[in-house]
Structure formats: C-alpha cells, structure tokens
C-alpha cells in the first residue's frame, strides 16, 4: 500500500534522510523507532507531503506522491492536487494541533464539511459517532483548552478518522502527554489497529510497538538500520546500534 524508494531529504546542508526505502502492506501497522534526530518524524511528514523530498519517490496505493511522470520527467503537482492526495492520509501530531477556536465536534466535522463537502447533518452524526469511538461522546461541545492532553489527542484521532483515511500516520502521539494519560491514547490506537487500519507510528512506546506492530523499523542518522517483526528487532536485534539504543531506552 505504501512504498518508499530511496527517499532523501536535506535541510540546507543538513542531510536528514539518506535513502529510506520501505514498504507497508494494507492493514499492517509499522512502528518506527530510533533516537531523536534520526529522521523518523521527517520521513513521516514526507509521506503526508508536509515536507518535500529531494530524491527518491513515495507511492500510496500505487499513486506517486507530489509529482506526475510525463515525457520521462517528474512534474511537480499543484497545491490543489497535493491537497487531494492528502485526503486519504490521516495524520496525528505530537502537539495535537487541534483548532483552538473550534469545539471538539467542530474540529472533527471541519474536514468532512469543508473538504469532503458532506452535509452538516451527516458530518455531525458521524462526528458524534467518532467521538464516541474515542470515548469522548460527552465532550463534543468542549473547547480544546478545557480538555486534558489525552482527551485532545483522542479528538485529534477522531478528526483524522473523519476524513475516512486509508492510512493513518502518528507522529510521536504520546510524547507530549503526562504519563498517566498515555494509556488512553494507546488504547484508542490499539483499537484502531485491531479494526484493520493501515498505520505508521513513530513512537518511543516500545511496549506498544511490541504488542501491536507487524513490522518495526529502527532508524538512525537518516538511514534504516534494521527492519523486521517486533520479536526480532525489539528482542533479538541484529545490529549493534539497535542493541545500544534499546538498552538505553529500557
């Protein structure tokens, strides 16, 4: 479903991604782990085209992201086309990024109404369903500033799901949360993985990765060091670098 080939990204002279290649099948959960600065988040942001890539290519459902191939060249897509490519990809951010001037329900229905052009009634009915799914049915009228971090992140997940995504990206979704609030967000994500959603999760929650992931990727210094099922990468890593990282984290 997702295929990345030799993805490079530079910020000025800083070479952040040095050739990332990987594949995720439909229904799979991929967890990306690694030290900070290793390029995990940047790679995730490239999939949603919040960053442009300098070399290489990413396909989602066989559609090349950001470019169209014509006459042996890659032509950059327009903003509108890129916006359309983002629709089936949901994204959850470390800092939640809920719209603070809208209630929880308004956050969730904004995309369906403005982007998918759903009717207000349809969007609201489904928005309430989604809030119920993340355990916040009674918080629809609450503004984000009155919600806890865990509640905000669950609203953010509902907001992403409202766009009926085929792929969900999570960028360190629990890193900004107080420890006792991590569990409620992970529970929602676990439930989502169980429903067959394709997910790429950048995380430091190794327990979650071990339990939910089909595939774990360990990244360091802009490269994929090691990839495989969680039992292998997290329990019996082949590379010395992975071992050092795991022993430092655990």
């Amino acid at each position, binding site marked *: 479903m997702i295929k990345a080939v030799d993805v490079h990204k530079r910020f000025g002279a800083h070479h952040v991604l040095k050739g990332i290649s990987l594949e995720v099948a439909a229904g799979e959960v991929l967890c990306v782990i690694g030290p900070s600065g290793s390029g995990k988040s940047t790679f995730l942001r490239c999939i*949603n085209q*919040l960053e442009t890539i300098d070399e290489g290519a990413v396909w989602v459902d066989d559609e090349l992201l950001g470019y169209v191939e014509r006459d042996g060249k890659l032509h950059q897509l327009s*903003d*509108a086309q890129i*916006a*359309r490519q*983002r*629709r089936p*990809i*949901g*994204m959850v*951010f470390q*800092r939640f*990024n*809920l*719209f*603070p*001037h*809208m*209630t929880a329900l308004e956050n969730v229905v*904004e*995309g369906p109404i*403005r*982007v998918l052009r759903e009717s207000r009634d349809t969007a609201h009915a489904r928005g309430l369903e989604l809030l119920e799914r993340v355990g916040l049915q009674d918080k629809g009228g609450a*503004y*984000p*500033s*009155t919600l806890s971090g865990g509640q905000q992140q669950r609203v*953010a997940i509902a*907001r*992403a799901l*409202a*766009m009926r995504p085929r792929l969900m990206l999570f960028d360190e979704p629990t890193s900004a949360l107080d420890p006792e609030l991590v569990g409620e967000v992970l529970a929602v994500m676990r439930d989502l993985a169980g429903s067959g959603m394709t997910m790429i999760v950048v995380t430091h929650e190794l327990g979650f990765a071990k339990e939910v992931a089909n595939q774990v990727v360990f990244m360091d210094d802009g490269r994929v060091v090691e990839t495989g099922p969680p039992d292998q990468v997290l329990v019996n890593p082949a590379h010395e670098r992975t071992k050092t990282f795991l022993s430092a984290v655990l």
Partner: protein
Amino acid sequence: MSLDVAHLPRVARKHYGRYVAAVVVVAVLVAIVVSFAGGQIEWSVVGQYLTARAILTGVVNTFVMAVFAMIVGLALGVLFAVMRMSRNPVTRGVSYLYTWIFRGTPQLLQLFLWFNLALVFPYFVIPGIVEARTVDLMTPFVAALLGLGICQGAYTSEVVRGGILSVDHGQTEAAQAIGMTRFQTLRRIVLPQAMRVILPPIGNEFISMVKLTSLASAIQYQEVLHSAQNIYYANNRVMELLFVATFWYLIVVSLLSLGQLVVERRFSRGVKR
C-alpha cells in the same frame, strides 16, 4: 512566642497616596472648570450648535468615511499581508513596494494627489465600461476614501501579517493534513486565530481613522470639523464650535470602543484566560 497571633484580627494597610492623588486631581479639575466658566465662552452656543443640521451631517459623514476607509484598509491589508507572505516573489515584491510608498508619504499629501488626479488624467476611461471626466468621478468623498483607505491598508497589512505570524505553524499543518487548500486554511483556521492578535491594534487604527477623516476637510469633504469651521468662519464662535466637534469625536470614538469590545469577545472563543 504566642501562637494566638495566627488568629488576631487583621488591619489593611492605609493607602495615603490615593487620598493625596484624589485631592490634587479634584483641585486641578475645579480650577479648570472655574476658569472655563469665567472665560469668554458662550456655553449656550455650544449647546445650540451641538445638534445643528450641518454639524449632524458632518458627524454622519465622519462616521461613514471612517467606516468605509477602514473597510478598504482592511481588505487591502489582508490582501497585501497574504501577498507579502506568499512564496511568489512577484507578489512579495509588489506588497513591499505598496507598503513602502503609502507608509512613506504624508496622508494629507496623498489626499491632495488623489483629489487633483484630474490634472494628470482629464478623462477616466475603461473601454466599453466607463468613460467620464475625472473631475466628476474624483469627488471629495472618493478622493478621501482612496487616500485614507489605501494608506490605511499599508499599515493594516503589517498588523495582519503580525497576526498571521502569531498563529502556530502546527495549525497550518493540521489543516493541510485534513486536505484543506491554502485558501481554506487561511480563511477557516489561520485568520480566525490571527484575529485575536489583530483586533486590538485594528481597534486603535479605527479610532485613529475617525480622527484622520478631519484631514479630508482640506479637500472639501463635509466631515464634522469642516462643518464646524464653516460655521465659525461665519459667526466667529471659534472655541464654541471646536468644542462641539470635540464632543462628537468623543461620542463616535466611544461607540467604536464599545464595538471593539463586542468583536474581541467573539474572536476569543476557546481561549483560556
């Protein structure tokens, strides 16, 4: 040491400074009132002209000009702020040039330029749509509206730009992640949040604008100061009529301040204090 101290009655400290300040202020106010009461000014004339037809027309014109010039200023301000922040180097350059020219020249001079445009272009022609003598088009109202509005836009664009910059970039990313276009992101997500930061300075600018409309009296626009002057040229009651104008400026500005309060409350939804 007795622990009973913990529950003894408490006496607040005396604020002697406040009493002193109050006495001084009252004394100064009394002095001002007494001197004006004994001065050579006919208060009955002030009262008489307060609701004179020419003055009221002037008040309405002042208000109308302030509102319309501000609308022009806001529209241009948002437009040029967005152009300035665009990735397009041409629009960025144009916006920079606009701010440079209209912020860099006196407003009174700009009013004169617009008002006298007919000297350069005697006829205003858009083939098939408009064909007229520029003197007929460039009335005092139109010249003042253009002069004040366009200049205001140059200032407002910087205020709007500051407001847009104050919105966390994560908001734009979240909007893009749900597939919103740049325009939708701006209109639905960024601008409503920027408004909270933009409104207080805009309120300020609106109030400045009310007073700036008095410049338009120089090109014969019938605003309240112009009306007051016309009357005192005839009857020599200079101070009386200036007080009439003062009164009405304060009224208009007070109304706008109230309006600002209401609008600011509307745009602070979801903000924790």
